[in-house]
């Protein structure tokens, strides 16, 4: 098989790689905020339970979580394994990344001085207005570098979908590598991820720049 054929075949999986990437961000970014707010809840039970789930999600491999989400229902309830693997992949990824984002959000929210809340309260801002208008915009700016880190990691983590044979770029590459006994597909995959992340880096850099209008 020529290198060109390999590249073309693997490119066909890029759409699915992107699907994992964008859908995971779409769900995990907001879900992370909910988890962060639960984690910071004044109700001890709520924050303790949330904290426990975060430690589990951050303390076990994403690969294991993906296998659990994909095949767990079959072993537990005898239900059939989803034919479209994108669903379990996105569920596992979104939950896992939400746990990481939650901790980033929490760090950002807790880094805003209490005086900002007090100033807003005295000026008649409601709790929701204070959070959405005063706190959140400042949090977004502060956490951008950490979020960029996670997003870059996510690009590479999409390859973990090969464990459940979801036909994304890396899974196809691995299959070609096996059938052709060639290392080339892995090199191609490496270049793809590198280029993908170059775009991510550039985009996140632009967002950070846009938030640069204040300190």
């Amino acid at each position, binding site marked *: 098989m020529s290198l060109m054929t390999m590249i073309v075949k693997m490119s066909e999986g890029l759409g699915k790689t992107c699907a994992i990437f964008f859908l995971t961000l779409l769900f995990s970014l907001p879900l992370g905020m909910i988890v962060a707010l639960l984690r910071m809840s004044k109700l001890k039970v709520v924050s303790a339970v949330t904290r426990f789930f975060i430690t589990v999600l951050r303390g076990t491999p994403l690969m294991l979580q993906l296998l659990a989400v994909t095949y767990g229902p079959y072993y537990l309830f005898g239900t059939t394994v989803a034919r479209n693997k994108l669903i379990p992949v996105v569920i596992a990824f979104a939950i896992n990344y939400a746990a990481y984002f939650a901790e980033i959000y929490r760090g950002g929210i807790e880094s805003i001085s209490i*005086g900002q809340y*007090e*100033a807003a309260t*005295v000026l008649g801002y409601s709790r929701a207005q204070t959070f959405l*208008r005063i706190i959140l915009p*400042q949090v977004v700016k502060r956490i951008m570098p950490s979020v960029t880190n996670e997003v870059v990691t996510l690009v590479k983590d999409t390859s973990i979908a090969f464990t459940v044979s979801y036909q994304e770029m890396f899974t196809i590459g691995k299959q070609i590598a096996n059938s052709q006994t060639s290392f080339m597909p892995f090199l191609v995959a490496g270049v793809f991820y590198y280029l993908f992340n170059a775009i991510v880096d550039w985009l996140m850099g632009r967002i950070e720049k846009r938030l640069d209008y*204040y*300190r």
Partner: protein
Amino acid sequence: MTDEKLNTAQEPAAPDILEIRSLQKSFDGQCVLSDISLEVERGNVVSVIGPSGSGKSTLLRCAAFLETADGGDILYDGQYALRDGVYAPKAELNRFRRRFGLVFQNFQLFPHYSVLKNVSEPPMLQGEDREEVRERAVALLKKMGLEGKENAYPYQLSGGQQQRVAIARALAMRPEILYFDEPTSALDPELTGEVLKVIRQLAEEKMTMVVVTHEMPFAKAVSNRVIFMAGGVIVEQGDPRAVLDDPQEERTRQFLRVFDRA
């Protein structure tokens, strides 16, 4: 006819804008405010002085509902915000909040907002007319000597300018009484003057103010009354000259000596 006259004669004088009675506050069992009572008349400036940890900031923060008092009364314009240690319902407290403004030691401007937005957003969120608020904000900034700074961001301003923005922001809400919590303590010495000047100007315009401060000459020159606090109690209060030049209590003398030496 005579009855009517009698009634008007018996009617009490207009209530003070702020009245605090026997205010109590402790942190973790440690008493920080004990039996604090004071009134602030409309148009008066009251300075609160005292060593750090004396409870003067806590007192101001209690009046602004940023700290929860454990006992006593807080009345605005004769209406109870706190009665015998029990606060009025939340909606009512929000209405009381509109009566006062607070200027913080470290400004607490919103860094992601331009100067103009810092000053104009709060009244706009209260549903006031946007154009009217904008004009008011521009006028206030001009009055604070910040003409042309409307589109600047807080980080581009000096500390003294930032504090004057904070004062404009508080005034834009048209409070009946303005609280200052050590407004010049975070400023370099050469910048305190410009902030004290605008406060003095407000005093001349009969703005009602309570100022927690360490600036003794300012307190003496501007206030109608000085309150000296120490150890969570009001040790002495009265005419600024009387308290600062001829204190009756040993604790006050001791405190003021430190300033004389400096």
